[in-house]
């Protein structure tokens, strides 16, 4: 109970008053200071149970605290650290035994009528996010992981000169532990009537003002902890993320899937088409790639006799960053022996709806102002039909002439296409690629409600099994919600000879692109950059092919983008809102 040391030493109140003003208001305007009661706006939106703290909104027009303000605040607070130590208090305590969190208190005493007290002894702790101090009375708002509770500090009730200490040495942002009894104020605010308190951690920097903290987007991501202190709903996103991941895990474990861990560092990066990160292992003396998918190793597990496996893990792709892309992201990949892609559709529905119910308790959700219905069953349509429906072009009737097909596509859709789309169409080197390109440009953005897009062309699906009825297609689907791909699944290709041929073809195509890109060194800058994207090396994972030669059972597999599911279910516009520490450009 070291930390519970009460403030029993009698000390002469220091004349720190001017300093406090400086400290507590450095991020509010200097002009709005009052002399007797310091009113500082809570930097959190008050919860429904708490009354608003402070009077009229104290809007400020000043910008974020400048560096010199921060330095001044730090200097003052460092002095307070020294002062505390000189009085025998440790401003960085070792522990605090708390009996209740804020929400436990709010819950337990929710029926306590206004103006009434309970003599129960409670102990709680958290960060001070607001305070009002009067002559002999002070109100502090304490926030912990669970919620908010008010600390009601009366001079008479506090031991010795603790009240003076409270006024002189405690700042907003400090982490406090407090013990006392329970009271609901006349205004209806549940409070801890404080007998004693201890500063557990002295904060040195001022918390950002709510409005500025919110608008400084870059800072939100760079200093996520500040974002979370200023905006509790941000922490909620990460709580929901944990819940979603846990729900996914529960769902697949219940179905008998076993979680495994496959390597991040690999000799060859396979299982997808993307530029990998390269690193170097000193003692092995070789380059290693960061995985771009977990697929090829999980399939080895199927060969080894694990019939239901999954891995939730980080994937790395050396690509540009955007609201939808972070170089590292999280997926679940799962593989089930003796099943086909039909059963994976079922699985995708199961997982996403369970997550939605876990987070929202219902299947109708709002995403960026659009209502999404996750009621099952979801729409299933082939890629051919979707393209036909949207463009009128029936790729089944176009024959095998790629050039003719391109002409038809460009003529029919020329007006809708932007320049980059036209060059993408022209660059297609097979009908399958062309169909997919048209699909991506025209259809994808329109797939708002959950839709399974079925039966992708074989040319763009090197790991999927040929369709059992339609030549040239594969048993593959992707799941789209809100115009975004959430899942990709197929009946897995198990024929080692077919697989080898397809991967070799992929490498050949890639090398052709690379050679073409290298020879076009004199083209405009934009194009060079685009070509540069293809300048990485693709290697064949021979060990994987050998594994297939030992026989993999018929199976289906699916990859689900967890970040995207979290975006959907937390109504987040950017992937950076669901990744605690997204990768950002180097700060100027």
């Amino acid at each position, binding site marked *: 109970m070291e930390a519970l040391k009460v403030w029993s030493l009698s000390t002469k109140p220091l004349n720190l008053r001017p300093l406090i003003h400086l400290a507590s208001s450095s991020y509010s305007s200097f002009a709005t200071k009052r002399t007797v009661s310091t009113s500082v706006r809570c930097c959190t939106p008050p919860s429904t149970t708490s009354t608003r703290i402070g009077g009229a909104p104290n809007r400020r027009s000043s910008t974020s605290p400048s560096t010199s303000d921060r330095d001044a605040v730090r200097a003052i607070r460092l002095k307070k650290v020294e002062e505390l130590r000189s009085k025998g208090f440790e401003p960085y305590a070792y522990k605090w035994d708390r009996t209740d969190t804020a929400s436990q208190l709010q819950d337990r005493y929710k029926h306590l009528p206004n103006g009434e007290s309970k003599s129960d002894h409670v102990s709680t702790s958290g960060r001070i996010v607001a305070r009002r101090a009067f002559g002999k009375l002070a109100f502090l708002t304490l926030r912990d992981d669970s919620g908010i509770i008010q600390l009601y500090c009366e001079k008479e009730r506090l031991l010795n000169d603790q009240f003076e200490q409270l006024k002189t040495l405690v700042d907003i942002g400090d982490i406090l532990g407090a013990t006392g009894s329970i009271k609901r104020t006349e205004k209806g605010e549940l409070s801890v009537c404080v007998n004693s308190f201890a500063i557990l951690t002295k904060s040195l920097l001022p918390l950002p003002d709510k409005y500025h903290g919110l608008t400084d987007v870059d800072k939100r991501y760079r200093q996520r902890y500040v974002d979370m202190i200023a905006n509790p709903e941000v922490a909620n996103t990460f709580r929901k993320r944990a819940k979603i991941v846990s729900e996914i895990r529960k769902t697949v474990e219940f179905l008998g899937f076993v979680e495994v861990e496959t390597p991040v560092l690999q000799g060859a990066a396979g299982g997808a088409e993307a530029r990998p990160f390269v690193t170097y292992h000193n003692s092995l003396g070789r380059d290693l790639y960061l995985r771009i998918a977990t697929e090829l190793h999980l399939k080895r597990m199927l060969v080894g006799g694990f019939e239901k496996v999954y891995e939730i893990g980080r994937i790395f792709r050396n690509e540009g960053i955007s609201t939808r892309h972070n170089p590292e992201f999280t997926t679940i990949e799962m593989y089930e022996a003796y099943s086909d892609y039909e059963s994976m559709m079922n699985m995708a529905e199961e997982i996403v709806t369970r997550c939605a119910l876990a987070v929202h308790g219902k299947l109708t959700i709002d995403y960026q102002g659009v209502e999404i219905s996750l009621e099952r069953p979801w729409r299933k349509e082939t890629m051919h039909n979707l393209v036909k429906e949207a463009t009128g072009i029936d790729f089944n009737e176009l024959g095998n002439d790629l050039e003719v097909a391109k002409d038809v596509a460009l003529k029919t859709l020329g007006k809708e296409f932007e320049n980059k789309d036209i060059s993408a169409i022209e660059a297609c080197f097979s009908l399958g690629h062309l169909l997919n390109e048209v699909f991506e440009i025209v259809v994808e953005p329109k797939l708002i409600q959950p839709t399974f897009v079925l039966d992708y062309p074989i040319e763009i699906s090197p790991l999927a099994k040929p369709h059992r009825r339609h030549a040239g297609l594969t048993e593959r689907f992707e799941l789209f919600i809100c115009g975004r791909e959430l899942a990709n699944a197929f009946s897995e290709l198990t024929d080692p000879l077919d697989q080898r041929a397809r991967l070799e073809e992929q490498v050949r195509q890639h090398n052709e692109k690379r050679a073409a890109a290298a020879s076009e060194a004199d083209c405009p800058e934009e194009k060079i950059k685009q070509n540069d994207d293809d300048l990485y090396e693709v290697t064949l994972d021979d060990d994987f092919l050998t594994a297939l*030669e030992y026989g993999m059972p018929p199976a289906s597999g699916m990859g689900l983008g967890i970040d995207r599911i979290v975006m959907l279910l937390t109504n987040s516009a950017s992937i950076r809102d669901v990744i605690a520490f997204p990768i950002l450009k180097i700060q100027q």
Partner: protein
Amino acid sequence: MENSVEETAIGVSNLGMEDPNGPGETASKNARKKELKNKQREEERRRKEEEKAKQTAAKAGSQVQKSVAADDDDMDPTQYFENRLKYLAAQKSDGINPYPHKFFVSMSILEYIEKYGCLSNGEHLEDVSVSLAGRIMSKRSSSSKLFFYDLHSGGAKVQVMADASKSGMDEAEFYKFHSSVKRGDIVGVTGFPGKTKRGELSVFPRSFVTLSHCLHMMPRQKAAPGSDNANAKKTDVWVPGSTRNPEAYILKDQETRYRQRYLDLMLNMEVRQIFKTRSKIISYIRSFLDNLDFLEVETPMMNMIAGGAAARPFVTHHNDLNMKLYMRIAPELYLKELVVGGLERVYEIGKQFRNESIDLTHNPEFTTCEFYMAFADYNDLMDLTEKMISGMVKELTGGYKIKYHANGIDKDPVEIDFTPPFRRIDMIEELEKMANLNIPKDLSSDEANKYLAEACIKFDVKCPPPQTTARLLDKLVGHFLEETCVNPTYIINHPEIMSPLAKWHRTKSCLTERFELFINKHELCNAYTELNDPVVQRQRFAEQLKDRQSGDDEAMALDETFCTALEYGLPPTGGWGLGVDRLTMILTDSQNIKEVLLFPAMKPQDEPSAKATQDA
């Protein structure tokens, strides 16, 4: 014919019978050897008989057809592979898809055994239909009209007794088809359940389809062809915490086992249990922490600075951002930032990366669990660790005591006792006592450095340069204290100079509130009351910089973002890290970290991996 069928069935069912001596952990080595020899002799005798029976059967069946199975064993692997390719090509040219899209499985083999294991000997349920699938791990024939297979799936096996009269094919067709089915193939059978007269639970197929083909010759123990069955039996009894003997595996060659883990998993049934145990360990940790209201989070694996530990990081490059990135060596600093942000209890289970050489306890990527708990200190965490680890051992093994081959597989295993509470030893106090030293109290002084350097010389404890005080102490502690830590033991109160992120001890000067948990002389956990005074933290980083300048490239780098976060106030917090791989090693009697990693990092290999199986 009926009689000979049953006879073969008898021979076959003997194979599957439990060996009364079992893999007997208590049996002495000699007894085991003797037993193995006897068994081998018996197997040999049986095999010869079987072969003879096969030959007669083949002759009886058809004059031209030869026993394919017998031939396969002697075939050159390349020849074997090419024959299989030819077979596939022939199938395809006949318009048959040799890789069907789907096979409906009505129940797992385990469920099948549970449901029909109680049939009485000789009982057949001809009006029941079941569909099973799996890999064929052994094939025997008694005539051209009767084939026996061991079908393996999900760690269990069942006999398939394929009888031409039940197959719906004529005899020639039946024989031709079953000659094409090879050991290692994945098949689906639909048929009825029954038991042979000798009590071997079997499935009697009405239809039999090959779902995927094994194109390579499956490694096998030539001396004891039936021992895969014995091995399969053994997995039923292996539980975490008991000993293993990889030397007795069908596939022994370590290179092959690690490079082609799927073969290891197929052939050595215990291996599957290792990875199931690993999965259970992680689940246990996760549910333990979830029950305490911890939140699982994910922090970046690629950073601008590799902080939170002292180790050489992997470096990579982001093209689009033109940015140098390091693979994380620990998630510590990010997790503490989240605690600053108000998430009071967080944890992350994930990969860390260290650019170090590979040995028995080190792999370049490994899995840790770290958690951070606001308002708790290292005393709380010691209690919590005891609860977690001993509870886990109890749940996984049924008791608190496990067996582990600490001194190699050829020595007797040691017993490790996880009964709480764990022993606690104060690092400096105990070191002084054991080595009869009187270490200067100010450990940052030159005097202390000199004293410890001399102590190292006196006790012949090697400390390669740079001889910083932290490194000297570490070597002495390794020599005197860690050696005594076989049962779980906390070494506590490390000096500040060894612990740049731990909080100074509330009563003992120059020390920190830190503990490491040692089991079998290896560090498993590292935890402390977190240093949350930003001023002191910056000083500690500055001191690390000094060590770095004196040549210790494992000294920690300053992370400015982290220090700024501390200035916003980190509550009093206890932080904790556990090496998941090492814990798995102890509970699975593994002496090499590669045993518990599905795909461990291996040196590059020149020849194609398929070749490696030939000498298995």
